[in-house]
């Protein structure tokens, strides 16, 4: 056994995120308070106020300006971080697309919270899931430890010379952000060595006839944020599509490198299967409720049932190849979505997963279970009943509906 590197601290998820940022050589932080994200910016403010980190903290007047400030700073070569939730993310909306379009490697923690109206401060994924087409890489973590580990990895992934894309690290509001856990913290120097300092990637500028760092250095005349019409816009978007296609291998690589220094890993970095091999039924889920599901599945496994859980760590890029590989042969799949998509046939995770499985020679039965909206508790008993239902489908019972809303009064 290798001795644990670093120390153990009792931290909630928000504090774990702040601690990871503290250790990651961040240059500029800009954020605006919103429940349940606020603890992150409070802790970071303390680190800056006490001179524990060199970062500039820009106390802006809105989330829109928070992301704008990070974008300006990232364009000038800084490593940047922001954090938000729910309405704050909604206010940043137009800039989410600009951030990825300008290829600015901003890292943002989103403490997932339901969207208004009615106003609600508790967890669901409707805020970040809605941003799935904005060109951001999206992680969904299961606990505070993973929040800490993922924020550190996020800087390396975002700034990778082949990628240059913003990363959103999603953690469930209150379930993770406000729940105290023992978190293994790496020594400052280990994290610093792992993430290094931001080194902007080079870009070839035709009119300069050379490669230059893609930053506003005060001297080199590069133009960022130009207008491209029907003759060039599509090519810019294609470059973005191509870049995010390269992300999966970079996530795996960074995850593996991190495993070597921390001795902690989460599946292959993209998907985290538990009991999936040889399972008759599998539940697919993202976020903290994976813990509850694993707890139930463990008991079912002990009773001899062949039940598995597949937790997706990334939703963007969607790990379709990895998912298809581990799920091929599984007869019944339950997809647990923590977001609604009114008017759609099922919620986004269900749709994307079902679509990925469509080309299998033998298609499984895939049923959507929408849960936890606005912080509604997901009880182990509910998960057990879902598993029992899926086992019934496995015995040939046809689902009455392929989209079920669980835990709601009607």
């Amino acid at each position: 056994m290798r001795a644990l590197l670093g120390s153990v601290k009792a931290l909630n998820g928000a504090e774990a995120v702040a601690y990871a940022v503290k250790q990651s050589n961040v240059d500029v932080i800009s954020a605006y308070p919103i429940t349940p994200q606020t603890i992150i910016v409070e802790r970071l403010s303390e680190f800056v106020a006490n001179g524990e980190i060199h970062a500039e903290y820009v106390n802006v007047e809105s989330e829109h300006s928070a992301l704008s400030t990070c974008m300006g700073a990232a364009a000038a070569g800084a490593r940047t971080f922001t954090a938000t939730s729910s309405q704050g993310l909604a206010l940043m909306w137009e800039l989410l697309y600009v951030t990825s379009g300008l290829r600015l490697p901003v890292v943002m923690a989103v403490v997932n919270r339901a969207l208004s109206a009615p106003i609600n401060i508790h967890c669901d994924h409707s805020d970040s899931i809605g941003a799935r087409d904005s060109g951001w890489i999206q992680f969904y973590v299961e606990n505070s430890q993973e929040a800490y580990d993922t924020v550190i990895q996020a800087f390396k992934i975002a700034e990778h010379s082949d990628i240059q894309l913003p990363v959103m690290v999603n953690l469930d509001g209150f379930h993770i952000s406000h729940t105290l856990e023992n978190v293994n913290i790496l020594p400052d120097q280990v994290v610093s060595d792992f993430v290094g300092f931001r080194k902007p990637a080079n870009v070839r500028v035709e009119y300069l006839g050379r490669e230059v760092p893609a930053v506003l250095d005060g001297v080199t005349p590069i133009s960022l944020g130009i207008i491209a019409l029907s003759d060039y816009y599509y090519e810019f978007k294609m470059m973005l599509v191509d870049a995010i296609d390269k992300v999966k291998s970079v996530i795996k690589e960074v995850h593996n490198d991190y495993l070597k220094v921390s001795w902690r890993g989460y599946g292959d970095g993209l998907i985290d299967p538990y009991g999936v091999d040889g399972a008759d039924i599998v539940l697919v889920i993202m976020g903290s409720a994976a813990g509850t599901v694993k707890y139930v599945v463990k008991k079912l496994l002990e009773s001899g049932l062949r039940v598995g859980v597949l937790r997706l760590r990334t939703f963007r890029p969607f790990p379709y190849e990895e998912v298809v590989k581990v799920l091929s042969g599984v007869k019944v799949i339950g997809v647990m979505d923590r977001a609604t998509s009114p008017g759609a046939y099922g919620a986004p995770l269900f749709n994307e997963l079902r679509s990925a499985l469509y080309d299998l020679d033998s298609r499984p039965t895939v049923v959507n279970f929408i849960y936890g909206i606005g912080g509604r508790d997901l009880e182990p008993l509910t998960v057990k009943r879902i598993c029992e239902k899926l086992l019934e489908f496995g015995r040939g019972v046809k689902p009455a509906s392929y989209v079920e809303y669980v835990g709601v009064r009607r």
Partner: protein
Amino acid sequence: MSSSINIKELARSKLKLLPGHRHCPGCAAPIIVKLVLATIDEPVVVVNATGCLQVATTIFPYTSWNVPWIHNAFENAAATASGVEAAFKALRKRGVVGDVGVNVIVFGGDGGTYDIGFQSLSGMVERGHNILYVLYDNEAYMNTGIQRSGGTPYGALTTTSPYGTVIPGKPQHKKPIADIMVAHRAAYVATATPAHWVDLINKVRRALSTIGPKFLHVLSPCPRGWRFDESMSIEICRLAVDTCYFPLWEYGGGVWRLTSRSLEIARNPALKKPVEEFVKVQERFRHAVSDDQRIIKELQAYVDAMWEDLLNRCAVRHS
């Protein structure tokens, strides 16, 4: 306080906005940008709000900007500039950039400044960033085809403040944006026009020698939107100042001062022209000229009141 300005030297200085851009003939915006940037040494970063200036200068694969330049969105130029400034501070702390201060300059139109960008501008000034924000004010949303803004004057015709039978042109006066920046306790605030270019350059110099948030409000006549001959842009700036529609002043260190032609008018009130002189050369006011003078009278009364107010502020400090 400023050294003398040599027009030949100025003309020989590095061109930071290159020819070939797609601004309309007679547009004052590129003249303003060239004058401002000719006064500013590198290192410099220019931040541009969405608008005419941005779209006319950067149609891919071309750019007119011969300096580092960024456009983010419409309402967030001030916040983006705040980030640029913060980045240089942080990078200086860890020794990546030297101690030479970078000049962070924002160019925003009236839409991006008075209206949609007002919140981020207010935040930038409140936080005290060391940034020069230049408003080129063409008094309407010209990029989308002449719609009224908070900077459009009373009575002016735009496509969203048309001359209707019930509502004749814009019913509200111009928002006193530069006064609002003074009320924010900005480090330096001034008004300028490209016609009074020596005054403009002196003000840019004074702004750059002041640490903190600086705001320069520059009138930018628009031949398309104001409906005048494209050869008239500079002349219209002179009329705006001569009628006291757009007085030239500056504020810094708690002191208000009139400058250039406006100072001359204050000393010799006989030089002050009626606002009709400014109004009658622009088709956007054609109904005001042909009508019963009600709009012109209202505009004149407003201009007179604002001018008196300004005289008092400047006189109080001068005496």
